[in-house]
């Protein structure tokens, strides 16, 4: 693998390797409660994340991006496929060993209000992982918590306060401190800033970047806001209806998107620049995202695609390297 110039933290080795990941949820019906259909939330996702990099995962609601993040951490049992963390296959590990592995992989959740227990002080919230993994005695844990709070930009003086006493941005910092407690190598951040106002959002994004440099973290950054994802990610994967349709370095994805869906998605983002806005040509997609219960045949984007041909209705396009390090799943890319 070629070492990239200017990004020394990218060591190039693969930390997370996902192949053919599928998560299907059964829809139960009838008096016997049998599965009558499957929601194909994630339907064959391939991706890899290099050590020390941030992979952005974008897509619209219901495309399976959050489910992918959770399935990688084994918070949802995948229906099929393989997930390797540092070479260890996670999908076949017994649950007690998965639990041990969680020290290496953590999650930051979207909702800073719902993801913190209202009856715990923030000291208890941040120390819980340390206690679960028996990291030191009470005094060591206390010191560690104080340090963690400091690292995420909170005053350790607040350890005995409850989550409701903090604003949204501060709560998200608490969630990040909790995720960092066990010094994981890999963090899945599921829409960590989408509930925050723009001025606060920028604070948290900067914090995530600082922490990555400090602790050599690897992120899977799940979000629907493409500008945010571009800002924080080295590479970006675009999902549509349970599949990755394009995966590339963030600059080349934004400058030269190959998949028609990515092109439409990028053109739909409003840009805070009135001149640019008036000159832009917008691709307005017809209709809505189809149901993942009964996805279209072949390429599942074909009913909304202006380039669709007969082959798109029949054959699922594989995710292939169309240009160097630029993967797309399309019969007619470009």
């Amino acid at each position, binding site marked *: 693998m070629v070492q990239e110039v200017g990004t020394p933290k990218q060591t190039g080795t693969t930390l997370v390797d996902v192949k053919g990941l599928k998560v299907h949820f059964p829809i139960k019906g009838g008096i016997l409660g049998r599965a009558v259909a499957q929601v194909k939330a994630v339907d064959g996702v391939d991706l890899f994340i290099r050590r020390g990099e941030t992979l952005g995962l974008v897509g619209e609601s219901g495309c399976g991006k959050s489910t992918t993040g959770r399935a990688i951490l084994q918070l949802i049992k995948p229906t099929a496929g393989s997930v390797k963390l540092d070479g260890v296959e996670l999908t076949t590990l017994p649950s007690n060993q998965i639990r041990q592995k969680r020290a290496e992989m953590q999650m930051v959740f979207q909702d800073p209000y719902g993801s913190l227990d209202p009856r715990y002080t923030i000291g208890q919230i941040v120390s819980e992982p340390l206690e679960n993994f028996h990291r030191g005695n009470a005094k060591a844990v206390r010191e560690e918590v104080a340090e963690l709070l400091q690292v995420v930009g909170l005053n350790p003086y607040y350890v005995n306060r409850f989550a409701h006493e903090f604003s949204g941005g501060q709560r998200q910092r608490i969630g990040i401190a909790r995720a960092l407690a066990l010094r994981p190598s890999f963090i899945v951040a599921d829409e960590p800033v989408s509930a925050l*106002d*723009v001025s*606060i959002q920028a604070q948290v994004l900067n914090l995530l970047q600082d922490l990555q440099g400090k602790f050599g973290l690897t992120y899977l950054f799940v979000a629907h806001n493409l500008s945010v994802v*571009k800002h924080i*990610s080295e590479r970006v994967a675009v999902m549509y209806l349970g599949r990755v349709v394009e995966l590339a370095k963030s600059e080349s994805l934004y400058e030269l998107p190959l998949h028609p869906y990515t092109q439409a*998605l990028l053109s739909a*983002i*409003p840009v805070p620049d*009135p001149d640019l806005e008036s000159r832009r040509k*917008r691709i307005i997609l017809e209709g809505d995202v189809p149901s993942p219960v009964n996805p279209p045949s072949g390429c599942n984007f074909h009913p909304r695609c202006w380039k669709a041909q007969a082959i798109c209705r029949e054959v699922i396009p594989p995710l292939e390297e169309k240009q160097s390090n630029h993967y797309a799943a399309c019969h007619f890319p470009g």
Partner: protein
Amino acid sequence: MTENLLEVNNLKTYFFTRGGVVKAVDDVTFVMKQGETLGVVGESGCGKSVTALSVMRLVANPPGKIVGGEINFNGDNILEKSMDELTDLRGSKISMIFQDPMTSLNPVFTVGYQIAETVKRHRKDISNDQAWKRSVEMLDLVRIPDPKRRAKNYPHEFSGGMRQRVMIAIALACNPQLLIADEPTTALDVTIQAQVLELMKGLSQEFGTAVMLITHDLGVVAGTCQHVNVMYAGHVVESAPVKQIFETPAHPYTVGLLQSIPRLNESRDARLTPIAGQPPDLTNPPAGCPYAPRCPKVQSRCRQERPELMPVGRGEQVAACFYPN
């Protein structure tokens, strides 16, 4: 026509809560011209929605109350109107669409019925058949495919983007002069947002409807609005034509807001410049300029006196700041 469609003067809307008086909207003044699209931007809790609700006289009382100022619509003060006069006005001259298309429609009536209901309320001479025809026509106008059949469907049979189109159809059914859209696309995905914004833009041009677009997304403002009000802590801190807001922002808050958004056309290494601290508690706002505690250019005067909106010497641009950029 040069006459202003809407003039809001020194509007004050306060909420009387157990924790104290929340000055959600405090001394807000602005005008809207006929057919103009005005963007109102700001972060959560800055008073942008309460301003809109005040214009509609929809502020829940108690705890909310409009305690001062006037709202002149076509020269009449809305604050002096009786309940009956207001009901005549709402939906016919001023309409509103809300953020959440999932809950703003009534689940037990067909969408066709809900559009027809608005039409019949405001036009006594119209028959049931004609009102229904108007529903189908409106659904067609907001580009719902197969409108004749879809008019007989219930809201749950539509997707989020389609429901927001139905809301727009209801709002525009009586050709209002002013449409207030409170975060109309915040709950929608970007590709659907693009569809809805395009539709609103097209319809407002076609019918000459003035639109007050409330949003926290500066990108949406750049693409749709002619004039922008930036709100902070219950005050309008800057008001200017859209180009000037983005090219020569005068208020430090506007500058901060623009610097804290990640942009697509920027390299990855550029670091965001966040605004330090948090918005003030509106039950106990700081004396002087509400932005002073977070402002990088703060001087001692800012902490004592509250600046009024003043021209900054660039045409129509005004900013409430002693030391504008």
